[in-house]
């Protein structure tokens, strides 16, 4: 598949359709490809596409595609992330091309389509077994049990913010966790700040998480972050019928709009 990718990338750069193609090249370990930015046809020959390419390059969209056209070697989750970035007015749709691929039968296949508009209707991946098991277990618990579960999880947090750094959707130049006037989230890695941080991290991704799982993979402490992301996604899907990144790229982001008919069940009846 690497050869097909190199040709596609070279064509995009050669025709000046894009300024840069963002993809993968070989890292120091075969199972850890690293990001590669090809600005010339020559540089495109270093691209690789293997089963170890796990996505996440949408992360570079704001840097590479805000001002000039760029192409991104993308998983389905990356494509959805890019679509949401366009909806949130972080990059213009006309600047983004994708070379989409999917993992299939231990290998990799390049998918047709190059423009974000062509990828409407993509849905979040089915959660892995451990995520759905944890979710089911949590839903069967009492609130007090759930509270204990999350306290234990968040107690592991060392506040390295790897979850944030790995996330393609966490792009604030100044994160709320770093604001200190006023200080919303205590910075020391103790219970209170850990709880606030982990609560807010997932919350700020509500309606925009593409469920790529990068946060959980990046966590050195093995905190269960995906059940949180998934719970929010489930709630938004069931109560609002909304699926992040699936709608038109011109549509407003989930929390940037509303409907008259939005649910009001949670309002105190009186």
């Amino acid at each position, binding site marked *: 598949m690497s050869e097909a990718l190199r040709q596609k990338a070279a064509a995009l750069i050669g025709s000046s359709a894009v300024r840069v193609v963002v993809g993968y090249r070989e890292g120091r370990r075969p199972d850890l490809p690293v990001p590669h930015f090809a600005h010339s046809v020559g540089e495109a020959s270093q691209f690789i596409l293997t089963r170890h390419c796990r996505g996440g390059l949408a992360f570079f969209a704001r840097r590479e595609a805000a001002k000039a056209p760029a192409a991104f070697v993308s998983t389905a989750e990356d494509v959805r992330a890019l679509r949401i970035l366009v909806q949130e007015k972080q990059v213009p749709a006309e600047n983004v091309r994708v070379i989409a691929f999917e993992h299939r039968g231990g290998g990799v296949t390049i998918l047709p389509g190059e423009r974000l508009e062509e990828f409407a209707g993509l849905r979040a991946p089915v959660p892995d077994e451990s995520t759905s098991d944890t979710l089911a277990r*949590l839903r069967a618990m009492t*609130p*007090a*049990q*759930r*509270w*204990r*579960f*999350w*306290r234990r999880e968040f107690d592991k947090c060392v506040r390295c913010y790897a979850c944030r750094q790995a996330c393609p959707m966490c792009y604030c130049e100044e994160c*709320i966790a770093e604001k200190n006037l006023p200080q*919303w989230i*205590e910075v*020391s890695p*103790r*219970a*209170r*700040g850990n*709880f*606030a941080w982990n*609560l*807010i991290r*997932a*919350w700020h991704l*509500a*309606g925009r998480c593409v469920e790529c799982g990068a946060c959980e993979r990046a966590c050195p402490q093995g905190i269960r972050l995906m059940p*949180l992301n998934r*719970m*929010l996604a489930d*709630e*938004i899907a069931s*109560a*609002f019928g909304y699926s992040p990144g699936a709608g038109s790229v011109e549509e407003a982001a*989930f*929390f940037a709009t*509303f409907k*008259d008919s*939005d*649910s*009001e*069940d*949670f*309002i*105190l009846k*009186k």
Partner: protein
Amino acid sequence: MARKDFTPRITAFVCNWCTYAGADLAGTTRLKYPASVRVIRVPCSGRIDPLFILKAFEKGADAVLVSGCHPGDCHYISGNYYARRRWAVFAKYLEFLGLSPDRLFFTWVSASEARKWADVVEEITGRVKKAGPLRDFAEMSPVRLIEGGTRNE
């Protein structure tokens, strides 16, 4: 603390144009309601960030009440609609994290609904009283209050 002596501390985030005026009217019409609620006035219910709610709990609130204009009545046309969508998800989220539903309340109170404001405060005070002091956040506090009110490790 004995349950019957317990006066809950409820933080209420209310919008300037409807609920605050409603609460004000409740005062000027001399309605009696429990003195358990601390009102924080914000421009619009759309201004209420979930971080406010979290902070209130961290600082010792036993419950939080969020209230704004009825849908269609927003002074800024649509602030409460944005807020409604946010809270609908946030309420479920806190429940999933393990906060009891008796700790976070949402309601609409208009500028003329003094009676409703008094009733709402009465009702949630009763529910929070029954639930007792909120220990969940106090237990995770990294700092403890020592006598004289200074913070120390």
